[in-house]
């Protein structure tokens, strides 16, 4: 069944976009409803999972754009020097990565998710979020740095 097969991955996607668990559940529900509505339009171009992910991501973005959100940088901790050791990176689990992405401020998180994980270009992100492509680029850069810093922290904390 479509739901059983993809719900976990799509829930993970929704959690990365949502600000809390309840909102992620809403995104998942709306996303699946949209999937079932438009499933007949899937023409087999590309993977079904990729198509579903993009659809759910768009649903999430649409819902987020309905409420007020902003690129708030006041709560962002200073980025530390990232750990460069690949051996260290490989120790981090998918769950930890997911949790760290969710910790990113909303503006960073949206841009990071859309560009890095979903593969949207900065121009597309600009249209989706009603921001300039250059803003998207700078947000991505900062998000990347912050995430690397959080990962470094995570690794250090693990060692304590």
């Amino acid at each position: 069944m479509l739901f059983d097969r993809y719900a976990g991955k799509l829930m993970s996607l929704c959690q990365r976009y949502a600000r809390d668990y309840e909102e992620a559940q809403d995104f998942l529900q709306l996303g699946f409803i949209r999937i079932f509505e438009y499933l007949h339009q899937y023409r087999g171009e590309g993977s079904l999972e990729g198509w579903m992910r993009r659809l759910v991501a768009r649903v999430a973005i649409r819902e987020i754009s309905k409420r007020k959100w902003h690129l708030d940088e006041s709560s962002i901790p200073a980025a530390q020097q990232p750990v460069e050791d690949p051996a260290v990176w490989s120790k981090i689990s998918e769950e930890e990565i997911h949790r760290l992405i969710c910790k990113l401020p909303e503006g960073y998180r949206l841009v990071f998710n859309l560009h890095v994980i979903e593969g949207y270009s900065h121009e597309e992100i600009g249209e989706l979020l009603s921001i300039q492509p250059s803003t998207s680029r700078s947000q991505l850069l900062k998000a990347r740095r912050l995430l690397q810093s959080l990962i470094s922290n995570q690794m250090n904390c693990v060692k304590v």
Partner: protein
Amino acid sequence: MKHESFDEWMRQKAGAHEAPVPADAWEKIAGKKKKRRRFLIWWWIPLAAGIMVLGYGTWRYTGITRGDKQIATADKKNNDKQKAGTTGLQDKPTVTVKQQQAMLEKQPAQTSDNNHSERDIATAVPGEFAKGKTAGKKTIQKKVVNRIGSNKTNDPATIVKAPLKEITDATEKAQTALLPEDKRNNRDTVSIQKMPEERVGHDVATISAPEAAVVKEWTIDSVYLQPENLATAVAAKRRQTYFAELYVSPFLPFQQVTQNKVSRVQEMPLMKNEFVSSRIHSKPQMGWSGGINVGKQLNARWQLMTGVQYSTFSEKISMEGREVITHYNIVQRMVSQPGGPVLVNDTVESYEYGTRQIEALNRYQTWSIPLMAGYRLMDKRGVSLQLQGGVVVHIARRYQNNIVGEFNTDDAGKRSSAAVAQGLDLHAGMRLMLHPRSRLRVFAEPAIRYSIMPTQTSDMFERKRLHQLGLSLGLQYGF
């Protein structure tokens, strides 16, 4: 690590992650899918009903108009004759019943529709009708289908339905207005009337030979087509055809379903605030609505109207629930490294628990399209009473939430959203109308609105099913 490789690594890690799905997720999705289907059904029901009402109205109106044209043709012919030198119907050359019978019997093959060819001879005294009276106690009425006719349309003695002819709108409307209700629906019948002897003096009624077809129509409607009634009829009909109205309506909303649970999360720098409440008290406040309608009077009793309506009301919300405030504190921690201990930043979470009372004010502003039908029950001495019913389709709603005393106004203190909304109310009311002037009417309408499809926008916690009890006060102007 370079950006590309970092991104690729993140894509793989994050893309492969699967989060636990709530156990009831599928049930909720299936439920929402059903609701959506039900919504589609509910959406089409009023639409179909509206189309049916409009269709019925149009059909009814066009039926009346078509009949009016036929009668109007008769009237016009009569007027033409008058202009040609005759002083009136009474002055026209007459033929006897026997003469007419003889004329008709000579042309049996000219009847266009034998299935309905019950031929009778029209006898009438137009002069009596001109006085607005019926032909007397001995009046005999027979129904003859209108298709009786001759191929020779100019044949004066043939009972033939007059050809349709465009006439002035005023005349047409006048004839419709002057017809009583029962006559309008029986325009396809012809009454054959025999005059009392004491009036006519003999069994032969006077009739204009060239006007036989016309007189046939006149026997039904001549009483309503007299010139002295024409101006009044035009004015009366014009008054009733189209109208526009402006109204304002204070109303009291009351809701059928109360909210069960509300949860809200606020994220602030180094702080997170979670509030969950299951004790919610809602008190809708008095609201008002106003709008403009345009409508059409289909006949003496029925009218249809539609327009635009704006309504607004507030709702006081009182919530009591558990609040958890999470503080994120950045601390420095000594970590032993191969090169020696180093200080690193770390985050420590601390929690505050408590019970919180939230007072909030929700404000709803809705744009709607009413589709209404009215049925006039009574119309006497400048006062009329009318039943109003229909549907109100909500098309857009603005929702504002304002929490009293909220310390953080950044996100949750004031929320506002405007969106296309879907909602539907059934409306029923009793309208009392006064006619202070010929075209102007004043009305008051106590009404109730029953919400059959609750309206919701994205930011609302839960769908609300709000009914309304209100009193509309307005002005109506007829064209």
